[in-house]
């Protein structure tokens, strides 16, 4: 089932939730409803993941960077390695997609590939990958291998890394393990492939040490944090995250993404564009605005979120999402609560039911929904193995593991 099929039957929007620390606002940890003493506890993030699952979000995202997020003394800082945290959350959930950020500027593509594939095994096919560069000088100094390159170079390197990460997933065909006791062969080594990647930035031989993950290819998410990210999104992304100031800008960026995707020979309907929306809910617009003002006051400096910031009542948010979606400004959203866990609970209880009631998402996407792979849940096309054509095996995977 492709996105185009979904469109014919009644287009549904994709709904992701950012579950980072105390929330997206730098002063979130000081706000009522936050859990500032829990930010380094596994139980806190498991709780967020279960809440996101109960609510019916398609997936949750976990952001990451090597350097601390902030050097403002009054900001919360520090975080776990996102892939580690994702793997810790996965066995404690059964339906929600789990999408950690894994950076590619200072890391080894081989480890990134096996780490993400393993997350897909642990989550039984619910894993995604938010591909990011490490774009700060502070990140570069923590490795000391190379200085900060211009964005174009970093994204060119990221594209190579993504080719290797996803290419290694294909180096094992799905039916490579044969366990043929008569001939004593555990694997059919004709179904294992050398990647032999040679790029401008590095070369990697392969095959992977890890068999092909259950989804074949994890859901790849690329954020348009920088114009140079567009070619990476066009080549690699299943989901593109867009920080847009309003519906008009989002529609323009969506059109640009679709053009770029077509430009590299991919079907634009196989890629969904998701708008980032920061969310502060209140019973009334005035109450929500007051909360945001108070958060800014606590932060001690003007804070400008990336993308659109919504402050208002639940029905207002549902209206906004419906408008952006029906106006084709976005195929879905990643909601970023300013304060966690209280902001997530409010979305779960007051906004998601409205979206379901309007038929914008599946009515039973939360509790009771069947466990599927994340690709299936998002209606993404099954992942073809680039090597399988050579040996004539089954052409795709992405079904139940």
């Amino acid at each position: 089932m492709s996105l185009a099929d979904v469109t014919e039957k009644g287009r549904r929007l994709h709904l992701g939730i950012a579950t980072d620390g105390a929330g997206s606002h730098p002063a979130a940890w000081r706000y009522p409803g936050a859990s500032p003493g829990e930010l380094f506890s596994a139980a806190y993030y498991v709780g967020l993941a279960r809440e996101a699952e109960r609510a019916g979000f398609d997936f949750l995202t976990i952001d990451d960077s090597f350097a601390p997020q902030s050097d403002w003394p009054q900001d919360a800082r520090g975080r776990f390695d996102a892939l580690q945290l994702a793997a810790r959350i996965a066995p404690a959930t059964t339906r929600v997609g789990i999408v950690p950020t894994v950076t590619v500027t200072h890391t080894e593509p081989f480890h990134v590939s096996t780490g993400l594939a393993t997350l897909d095994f642990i989550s039984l096919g619910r894993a995604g990958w938010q591909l990011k560069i490490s774009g700060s000088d502070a990140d570069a100094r923590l490795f000391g291998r190379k200085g900060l390159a211009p964005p174009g170079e970093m994204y060119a390197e990221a594209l190579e890394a993504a080719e290797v990460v996803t290419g290694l997933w294909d180096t094992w065909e799905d039916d490579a393990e044969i366990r043929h006791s008569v001939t004593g062969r555990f694997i059919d080594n004709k179904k294992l492939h050398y990647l032999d990647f040679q790029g401008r930035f590095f070369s990697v031989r392969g095959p992977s040490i890890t068999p092909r993950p259950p989804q074949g290819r994890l859901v790849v998410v690329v954020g348009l944090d920088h114009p140079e990210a567009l070619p990476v999104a066009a080549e690699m992304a299943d989901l593109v995250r867009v920080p847009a100031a309003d519906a008009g800008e989002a529609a323009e960026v969506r059109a640009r993404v679709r053009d770029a995707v077509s430009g590299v020979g991919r079907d634009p309907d196989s890629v969904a564009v998701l708008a980032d929306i920061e969310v502060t809910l209140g019973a009334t617009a005035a109450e929500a605005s007051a909360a945001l003002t108070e958060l800014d006051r606590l932060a001690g400096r003007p804070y400008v979120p990336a993308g659109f910031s919504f402050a208002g009542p639940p029905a207002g948010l549902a209206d906004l999402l419906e408008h952006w979606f029906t106006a084709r400004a976005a195929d879905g959203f990643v909601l970023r609560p300013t304060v966690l866990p209280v902001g997530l609970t409010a979305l779960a209880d007051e906004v998601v039911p409205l979206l379901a009631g309007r038929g914008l998402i599946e009515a039973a996407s939360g509790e009771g929904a069947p466990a599927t792979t994340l690709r299936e849940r998002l209606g993404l096309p099954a992942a073809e193995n680039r090597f399988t054509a050579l040996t004539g095996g089954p052409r795709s995977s992405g079904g139940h593991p």
Partner: protein
Amino acid sequence: MRDKPKQIHLAVVYSVGSNHNLWTRSQPGTHIDFSSFTHLAQTAERGKFDFFFLTELLRLREKGPRAIEDHEVAGSPNIMAILAGLAAVTTHLGLVATDNATFNEPYDLARQIASLDHLSGGRVGWNVVTTNVDWVGENFRRGGYLDYGDRYLRAGEFLDVARRLWESWAEDAVEADVARGVFVRDDAIETVAYHGKQFDISGQFTLPRSPQVHPVLLWAGNSSEGREIAAAQADMVFCKERDLEDGQAFYADVKRRLARYGRAWDDLKIMPGASYVLGDTEEEARERAEHIRREQVSPQTAIAFLEQIWGQDLSGYDPDGPLPDVKPADPAARATVSKLRAEAKQHHLSIRDLAVELTSSKTGVFVGTASQVADQMNEYVQRDASDGFVLAPFVQPTGLDEFVDRVVPELQERGVFRSDYESTRLRDHLGLPPARTAGSQTAPPQTTKGAFDAPGRQRPSP
């Protein structure tokens, strides 16, 4: 003298890339599915084991140019990711990763390890390994350029950097004081600056001190140099299996070295690999053991083994027949081949018999009834040949079940193995002192000038 008998430490390892695993006895997918790892880890935890251990191969073995070895279990998960998953389905069991100091960067790996220590409540160990093989390096940006000496220099600096990062947040750094608006106490996070031969790093770590501060450090010390590094740096030596006498000599040699570094006899544990074959009677166990040895070496494996020595195709030979009468392709192999011929002739061995003798070791395999195996293991530990064992079951993932059901109670009855956990931290399971941080009395030596530069070792000139 001890008031109570010396306590045995137990771990289970799932290792890949050898003929150890009897894969014909398990179901498809069982070497990679998360449910298998869960079963093995939960069984170990049910048996009150100290830890679960994974080894790592960073490139699949090959039997020839561009031909992956196809007779063994191949395919393994990313170790740090799978252990983080296992932290979710266990509560006390230690989780020990083999991670390579050559093909990782210290900031990234130190952060993953600290994350896992937080996420598991203090259960992490790190088996530090190095590689100097170009062939493995072909899978990595870094390539395989490190020579033998430099890989230890790099490992030493790697550990120095990692320790600095793990300790860089003061113990009470996080205040999370909402009223005062202080999340992290002023000056509580050290900006780490390290300028060594291998690493030039500066910046701040993203994690508070983890429950154990440092993971339990394992070092695979077999060579004299490896033993010295272990004595200076490690909390545990993971070593190859030895018979009782050799084990005692090794144990005494490593433990004696500890004093040089201001460490006590019990500050370092020695745990060799081991396995077991159980039977209702001794005779049954022996039969099973012999059967397993042959099962590990299929007829094809036996031929493949000889092909590696002969350096040519021997697929036309009968595995149950005599050794090939052809000369090896490589003249350098002639001496080996004539030695093998003599041995086969003397003991009337077929190709497969010989391969079984040479590739399937009897050392380190405890064979007998549950009670006998418990006695053998206990004797080995009480007579100071080791502090315990890293057990490698033959069948994944169910091979540990019978050990936990039958041998563990025997050990508990003898008062030499815990009947329940007393802590959730691996360091405590192993009876190790707290991590030696920079402020503590027995801080680890500066490794760049310490044990990694073992005296007298020749370092190749650049």
